[in-house]
């Protein structure tokens, strides 16, 4: 080829030519012998297995041929096996690729070449304590293998074909875990599957029956064959015979020893027929054999086919149950065993759940305990705080009382602004303090702060109502309400205030309040500049005239801070209580017949209740009596 290449174009031509020669189509069309490179791979009683290259598919396959040219029956039987295998297309059954006759007219069939070991080899090595094999084939892996054999048989039975020579030698396990059942040479057609071509069934069956009846031999392998096979003759053989074989294979997978091991073939057959089978766990006590699996194995190997599993699917179901940790049908069930299995198949979940429950219980206990302690602490704190509250209340009441008494002093001293503050303080410390509220009402009323006073009086009355005194109206309230209605932005004059006060408040009551109201009005009324003293004199005269029911004429002199009021000679003047809160430097009342001068009638309940405490000098007639609760600090002179 090299010599042809001398230019770029020639390179292309060579490539083109080469491409054509090596194309698959070219290769395929030039095949003249399909199977070449034969090498003997193994041999059985009647046939040889040859490893050969299939030039069409380009792969290496297994070719089965008869050992030597045989009689018609053997050839027929050989081809029968091929046709049966061809009928079975399942991942766990060796696939058949081709059936044919070679140049010499000898029949052959081609199967997949399985690279691997037979189950027999694996079991032998396991028996010899090969450590590597134990790690490669622990029980779960062996059970996997067994399930694949079951799958193959379940499928074959569904196609109405029984293997009848199932044994570890006929099972190949590949390096990649593939398991295939081989050697269907003794397979029987069960003759009840309608899917199968009738003529094929008949032709196959014709020879098999004839063959078996004619030979009259026992077919199968002692140790794996079922009792009914071992009896020979016309004993019915069906899928349950395969189930027996499956049982004995499981037996061996479990305890790595034969279920039946007679000294010789005859003894083994005898043992088979007797059905004395030692439990796998007793056969090899050194191995940990699950009871579930042992039960499955023994059920499959019952002497009477009726007592065995009736289908391979039942075995598969039971093994799946075992693998998922459920009860198997072959096992006696007990509650604790079921509980144990439940735990076993959900180990992780069970452990987590138990841990969780423990944590929850522990947490709850701690929580309850802390709740208890918390409650105790809360109770203690409550009691403590109640005590504190009580103490606080007591202190508040005391404080309130003290403010109240201060307020009252200021009130009697005509310091109503201070009195308001003190009463308010008393109320803050004890909102239910009725007297303090009424004191506040009076102090506000004196200063003509009627709206505030009215609010307070409402609260005071509510407080009273709470104490179940059925009081809805009050003279002071009515009085202040009317005055509030009169009120403008100017201070109310004595002439405006007096009639309202008199209207609502009885003559002899609340003199302190009344005289303060009058005094405050007179003092605070807006005056005409330059006529201040005169106007005050007019007011005082008017007030006294109203009170004494006849005209009183008095003369007022001096400045606002040193008022000199001369009422002398007013023979009709009998009552001067209404002006008791005015401040006079001199009050001259001689030659009058004053009878009423004290705003309190009985014994004073407060030291500051005395009347005319703001009068510095009093001038009276010699015979004039001065009331003991009036003019206490006043200098009295007689004329």
């Amino acid at each position, binding site marked *: *080829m*090299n010599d042809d*290449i*001398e*230019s*770029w*174009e020639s*390179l*292309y*031509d*060579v*490539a*083109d030519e*080469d*491409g*054509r020669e090596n*194309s698959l*189509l*070219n290769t395929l069309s030039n095949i003249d012998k399909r199977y070449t490179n034969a090498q003997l791979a193994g041999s059985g009683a009647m046939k040889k297995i040859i490893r050969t290259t299939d030039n069409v598919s380009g792969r290496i396959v297994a070719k089965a041929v008869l050992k030597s040219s045989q009689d018609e029956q053997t050839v027929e039987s050989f081809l029968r096996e091929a046709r049966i295998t061809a009928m079975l297309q399942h991942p766990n059954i060796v696939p058949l690729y081709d059936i044919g006759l070679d140049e010499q007219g000898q029949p052959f069939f081609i199967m997949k070449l399985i690279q691997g070991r037979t189950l027999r080899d694996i079991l032998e090595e396991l028996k010899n304590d090969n450590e590597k094999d134990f790690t490669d084939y622990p029980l779960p892996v062996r059970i996997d293998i067994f399930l694949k054999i079951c799958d193959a048989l379940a499928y074959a039975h569904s196609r109405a074909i029984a293997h009848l020579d199932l044994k570890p030698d006929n099972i190949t396990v590949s390096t990649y875990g593939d398991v295939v059942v081989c050697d269907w040479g003794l397979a029987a057609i069960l003759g009840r599957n309608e899917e199968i071509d009738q003529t094929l069934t008949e032709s196959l069956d014709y020879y098999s029956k004839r063959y078996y009846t004619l030979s009259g031999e026992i077919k199968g392998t002692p140790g794996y064959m079922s009792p009914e096979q071992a009896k020979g003759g016309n004993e019915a053989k069906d899928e349950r015979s395969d189930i027996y074989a499956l049982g004995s294979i499981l037996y061996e997978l479990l305890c790595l020893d034969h279920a039946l091991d007679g000294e010789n073939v005859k003894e083994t057959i005898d043992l088979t027929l007797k059905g004395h089978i030692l439990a796998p766990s007793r056969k090899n006590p050194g191995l940990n054999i699950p009871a579930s699996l042992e039960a499955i194995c023994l059920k499959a190997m019952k002497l009477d086919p009726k007592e065995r599993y009736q289908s391979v699917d039942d075995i598969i179901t039971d093994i799946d149950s075992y693998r998922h940790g459920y009860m198997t049908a072959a096992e006696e069930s007990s509650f604790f065993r079921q509980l144990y299995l439940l735990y076993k198949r959900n180990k992780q979940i069970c452990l987590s759940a138990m841990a969780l429950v423990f944590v929850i219980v522990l947490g709850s206990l701690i929580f309850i305990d802390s709740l208890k302690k918390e409650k105790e602490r809360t109770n203690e704190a409550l009691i403590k705080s109640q005590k504190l509250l009580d103490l606080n209340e007591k202190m508040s009441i005391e404080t309130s009382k003290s403010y109240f008494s201060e307020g009252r002093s200021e009130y009697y001293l005509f310091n109503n602004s201070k009195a308001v503050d003190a009463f308010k303080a008393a109320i803050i410390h004890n909102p239910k303090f009725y007297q303090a509220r009424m004191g506040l009402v009076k102090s506000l009323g004196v200063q003509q702060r009627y709206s505030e006073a009215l609010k307070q009086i409402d609260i005071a009355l509510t407080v009273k109502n709470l104490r179940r005194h059925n009081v809805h109206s009050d003279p002071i309230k009515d009085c202040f309400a009317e005055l509030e209605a009169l009120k403008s932005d100017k201070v109310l004059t004595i002439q405006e205030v007096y009639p309202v006060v008199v209207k609502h408040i009885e003559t002899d009551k609340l003199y302190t309040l009344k005289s303060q109201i009058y005094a405050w009005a007179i003092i605070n009324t807006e005056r005409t500049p330059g006529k201040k003293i005169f106007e005050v004199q007019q007011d005082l005269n008017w007030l006294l005239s109203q009170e004494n029911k006849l005209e009183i004429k008095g003369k007022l002199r001096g400045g606002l801070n040193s008022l000199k009021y001369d009422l002398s000679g007013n023979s009709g003047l009998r009552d001067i209580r209404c002006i008791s809160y005015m401040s006079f430097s001199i009050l001259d009342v001689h030659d009058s017949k004053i009878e009423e001068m004290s705003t309190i009638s009985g014994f004073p309940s407060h030291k500051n209740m005395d009347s005319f405490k703001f009068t510095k000098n009093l001038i009276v007639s010699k015979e004039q009596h001065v009331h003991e609760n009036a003019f206490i600090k006043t200098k009295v002179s007689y004329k």
Partner: protein
Amino acid sequence: MKYYTRQTLLQKIKDVYSEDSWNEFVEIYRPYIYHVIKTFGVKAHEIEDHVQTTLIVCWQKLPEFQYEPDKGRFRYWLSRIAKYTVSNHSRKYRRRAELDQEIEIPTSLSPEIEEISDREWKMFISKMAWDNIKDDLTENSRLSFSALMEGESVESISERLSMPKNTISVNKKRIAPKMIKEIQRLQRELG
């Protein structure tokens, strides 16, 4: 026996009708179309114009191209369009829309055009294969092999590059199979 084309690259370009695949298409087939048109005896300054028009027509018509071994290979199809473009050079296809409607690609190719198509294809594929593999070669191997393919004698090369004749022939033995493989690959890819 027909030689089968897997036409992977071709298929890819056909399927993905985008700017990117246009660029790929132009990059691959422009040199071939150029050489085919050149052999039609077109004036040198007009070649580029025809190549451009041919590429555009090809691009437009590509979805219609059906790979049918009986009707001919992709390179014949390209040549047919190139021939058509050159023969109709008076027509200017300014608008692409017109192309679709008006062009009727001849279904057959005259034997001489087929010959041109084949010859140029051989060169085109061989050169492309050479471009693809030459970077992996040592300088001397590269120079000696390409000189051999250009027709220079072994003696002359030996003298010019001061290389033993033996080395030159060993090189050839080593490089030729690589070239053949690459040519076969391109053949499959490009049709």
